[in-house]
């Protein structure tokens, strides 16, 4: 073999495409590293020259300000670090609830837009075209001011049956306090959930094997709701409620849901639902009509056809753009700052930044947090997408 190899004159390395491409890539990487390093170095030098404090020492300093919604223990004497966690949890809360609400609403409207019912489909179209085309910030301001203006003042609170109040300071609900002895009800609840899952699995297997259906919903409800309640009643109902009551200015006690939170949650869900509805509609129309016709000819009803034949296939088209919408909800929640909801941006990139003056550090942390949330969300959705994607045989 070696004998046949022609003796070529050795070309200079610069004409070797492989060597050149490696060299270019190394050069590019070096340039990027250099740029990043010089940007950091330059920023640090400028901060030092202007004698602006830098570093992350501020994290443990006393915050000194009050926050209207804190799901974890927080007082004005807590640290900036604690305020960061309060803001992060508030952001995650509104994003998670927004994702759930927008998904439910979006699916309903997306399906309604394809409905054969003229009125229903026109109303869905109207919803999508209106909501999609008005800037979210305006909608949030509208919801916030609508909530504030429409609800009665503190002294004319609407009483909700069962001991709650609704006014322009928020929604106040009785807070259940589980006393000793209520643990057994929680055990019953856990057992009920486990039993319903087991029952559902068994029912599905049986249906696969024999075609017989089982009342999964009713059995599940019985196991998860009726059984724990029955256990609770048998053990003498060891749960008391902390009822909200009118104080001198505000309502004291109970669970308080801020109007800022409600406005942000409604605004985000309603806005994003319009986009999700379009994603769902696109997904459903991507399933060829033959599938529906085949299902009908097998005797399936329209509801069952949609649920068992069309949507599972449509999900493959729906999931990737749906992920983007979920990311949008999280990112759009930063508009909370306009209506006074204490999210991460308002607390941390707002008040903390202003008080410490450490813009670079605070903004870098905030960006890293949103990046992490988004990457985790899309990671989970990609995992789900892989599970439901078409299995090629």
């Amino acid at each position, binding site marked *: 073999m070696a004998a046949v190899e022609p003796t070529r004159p050795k070309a200079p390395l610069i004409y070797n495409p492989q060597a050149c491409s490696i060299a270019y890539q190394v050069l590019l990487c070096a340039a990027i590293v250099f*740029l990043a390093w*010089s940007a950091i170095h330059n920023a640090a030098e400028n901060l030092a020259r*202007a004698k602006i404090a830098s570093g992350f020492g501020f994290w443990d300093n006393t915050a000194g*300000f009050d926050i209207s919604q804190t799901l974890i223990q927080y007082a004005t004497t807590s640290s900036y670090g604690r305020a960061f966690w309060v803001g992060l949890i508030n952001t995650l809360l509104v994003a998670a609830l927004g994702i759930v609400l927008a998904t439910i609403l979006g699916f309903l409207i997306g399906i309604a837009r394809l409905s054969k019912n003229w009125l229903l489909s026109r109303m869905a179209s109207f919803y999508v075209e209106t909501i999609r085309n008005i800037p979210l910030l305006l909608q949030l301001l509208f919801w916030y001011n609508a909530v504030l203006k429409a609800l009665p003042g503190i002294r004319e609170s609407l009483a909700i049956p069962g001991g709650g109040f609704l006014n322009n300071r928020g929604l106040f609900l009785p807070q259940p306090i589980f006393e000793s002895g209520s643990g057994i009800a929680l055990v019953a609840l856990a057992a009920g959930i486990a039993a319903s899952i087991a029952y559902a699995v068994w029912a599905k297997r049986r249906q696969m094997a024999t075609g017989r259906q089982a009342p999964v919903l009713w059995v599940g409800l019985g196991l998860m709701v009726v059984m724990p309640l029955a256990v609770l009643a048998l053990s003498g109902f060891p749960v008391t409620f902390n009822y909200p009551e009118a104080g001198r200015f*505000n309502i004291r006690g109970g669970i308080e849901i801020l109007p800022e939170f409600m406005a942000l949650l409604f605004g985000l869900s309603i806005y994003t639902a319009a986009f999700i509805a379009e994603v769902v509609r696109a997904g459903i129309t991507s399933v060829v009509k033959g599938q529906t016709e085949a299902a009908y000819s097998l005797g399936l009803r329209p509801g069952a056809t949609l649920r068992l034949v069309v949507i599972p296939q449509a999900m493959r088209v729906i999931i990737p753009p749906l992920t983007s919408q979920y990311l949008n909800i999280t990112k759009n929640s930063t508009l909370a700052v*306009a209506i006074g909801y204490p999210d991460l941006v308002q607390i941390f990139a707002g*008040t903390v930044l202003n008080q410490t003056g450490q813009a670079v550090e605070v903004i870098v942390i905030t960006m890293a947090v949103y990046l992490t949330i988004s990457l985790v969300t899309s990671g989970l959705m990609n995992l789900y997408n892989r599970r439901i994607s078409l299995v090629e045989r």
Partner: protein
Amino acid sequence: MKSFVVRAVLAGALAIAASAASAQTLNTIKQRGVLNCGSNGTLAGFGLPDSQGRWTGLDVDFCKALAAAIFNDVTKVKFVPLNTKDRFTALQSGEVDVLARNTTWTSSRDTSLGLNFSVVNYFDGQGFMVRKSLKLNSALELGDAAVCVQQGTTTELNLADYFRANKMKLKTVTFATATEALKAYDAGRCDAYTTDASGLAGERLRLAQIDDHIILPEIISKEPLGPAVRHGDDQWFDIVKWTHYAMVNAEELGITQANVDDQKKSDNPDIKRLLGTEGKHGEGLGLSDDWAYRIIKQVGNYGEAFERNVGQGSTLKIARGLNALWNKGGLQFAPSVR
């Protein structure tokens, strides 16, 4: 590909070079031909553009005075409206040359934020506004109340301190802008609205029913409001300080916008030094010797600016109080020009 790398490296080097040269604020302003002034934009009496886009206010007049001293032209100011939480970043990054935006002088702002506070052009304190229908006489009766406040302010911190010190429960509702906070208070979201007393006087005029609201008598904090500059440029720091002192000295010496030309002929050595007819007192600042004359001719003395913007000549009708001259029972005191 190769040319891209070269360009990227060049751009990087340029960025480093460009950001390193910014110590000479006065020269930069002169080259640019306009002073960038960080302003309020929504607060009557301090900084507010009218329907024709003309800016008015005590802080606005301060920036006009700076422009008069530098350019002999009060129109060479660009007012950059800033909200409370972005204002320091804008000054730190060089987007504005001076921050004259009713900003409270505190130790941390003066040190770790990299700023220098120079003079106090308005001595203020924090107060509360409530609805008359609540029948309150004192801020100490506000326990358990919901209070609307603007974020990124000393107000936000004083509020928490005051309620903590007096062992009262507090519900704070925080907004990014004063406008939003006031609107929420007006809509009944909060029992009280708090900001500096001067701000309360201005904000009250923007409510739907002015007479339904009162300002409680307590002043819960010291709020010395004044212009701020960046660390590291002593000459510019001096110019900002002496612009205010020139206006206070002019009031003390009885020099007004109307009589400044006559006063130029005065034999009083204090007046001669201030107006630049004797000695060379502009040189040290890097300005012409008639710098103070330009200020008084085009903007007026401190008392005139006060009365025009927040005092009897304005809708706010705030009394001089702490802001009277030192020899009239107030705190405004200026070192002499000599």
